[in-house]
């Protein structure tokens, strides 16, 4: 029983230390790692969407619709980036989205 309590106290202390260190040291490694992870997150999603532009004509209407939705969902995340990065990637995302929408509209008209 005492062993269990000691174990729980240790876990709680470790968690508290982690929370405090993030709060007290805003530029510490935990925070940086978190930001890096979030950055990779939007970029990975961006790459996963936009690499499909070259084969957009072979995609089904459903796939195209899903890609357009993913572009729309990603946009607010890119809008939070710094000025130049935001401008560059919003433009790139818009080009991808517009191409998918264009192909979708063309296919629907056929």
């Amino acid at each position, binding site marked *: 029983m005492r062993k269990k309590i000691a174990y729980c106290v240790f876990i709680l202390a470790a968690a508290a230390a982690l929370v405090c260190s993030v709060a007290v040291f805003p530029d510490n490694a935990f925070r940086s790692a978190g930001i890096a992870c979030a950055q990779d997150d939007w970029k990975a999603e961006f*790459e996963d969407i936009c690499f499909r532009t070259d084969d957009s004509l072979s995609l089904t209407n459903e796939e195209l619709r899903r890609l357009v939705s993913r572009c729309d969902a990603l946009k607010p995340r890119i809008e939070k980036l710094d000025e130049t990065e935001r401008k560059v990637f919003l433009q790139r995302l818009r080009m991808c989205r*517009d*191409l998918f929408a264009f*192909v979708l509209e063309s296919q629907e008209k056929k």
Partner: protein
Amino acid sequence: MKPTLKTFAVAACFLIFAAGSGARERVPPQTYGRVIIGNHSAGAGLAPVVFDHWLHRARYTCRLCHVDIGFSMKAGATNITAATNRQGFHCGACHDGKRRYDGKIIFASCTESPVGKEALCDRCHAWRKNIAHENDFKAFAEKLPKDVFGNGISWEAAEKSGQVRPLDFLEGVSLKRPALKAQKDVSIEANVTWISDVVFSHKKHAVWNGCEVCHPDIFPIKRGEKKYTMLEIDEGEYCGVCHGKVAFPLASCEKCHTRPTF
């Protein structure tokens, strides 16, 4: 079929138009496609930047710069600054002093190094300066297939023969895309009888542009929905976004109007 008075009148108008376009576009071959960028240069006490398309298009595709790096298709609209270059955007995406082309390091843009600052800046901020550039147009162009207008280079033939191999991928910037599937050529009927129809090759254009440079920004319409006019194109719309500015000019009628008439 006998040519009518109307046909002659339209042909005469066309010749005047072509002559006018030709005359307007006859800039020296080395300056065809030149863009002067001066949004922020004067504020920094520097001459505007002279950007020569011929040097860059020989090495990279249009898409790499106008999609992956994010340069606008309209001159001056990108808002390039020394700071954005230093952060690795715009010119700094390649000109970072680390990347290599053909084994050679690409010089860094907008460095803050005080040593030889003037000389370094002059490589790009060269407007109205008599700067001897490392890459000489004449030496470059003499080995390539010739053309009458524009840069005097047949870029299409140069690309086809492998003399020009533009890169379409920049590590850390471009996306690894699957191989582009070639689309069918599109025939665009000429409104008049004295010139042949246009055969638009998706394949030729996609090598340089991919899909998203043209669709839907430049060509938002679907096939057959729009009648293009040479006046609109001459004013810089549709084909005129590139042709007449960087790609071969409109005076090269026979390059687009290629459908055999007999």
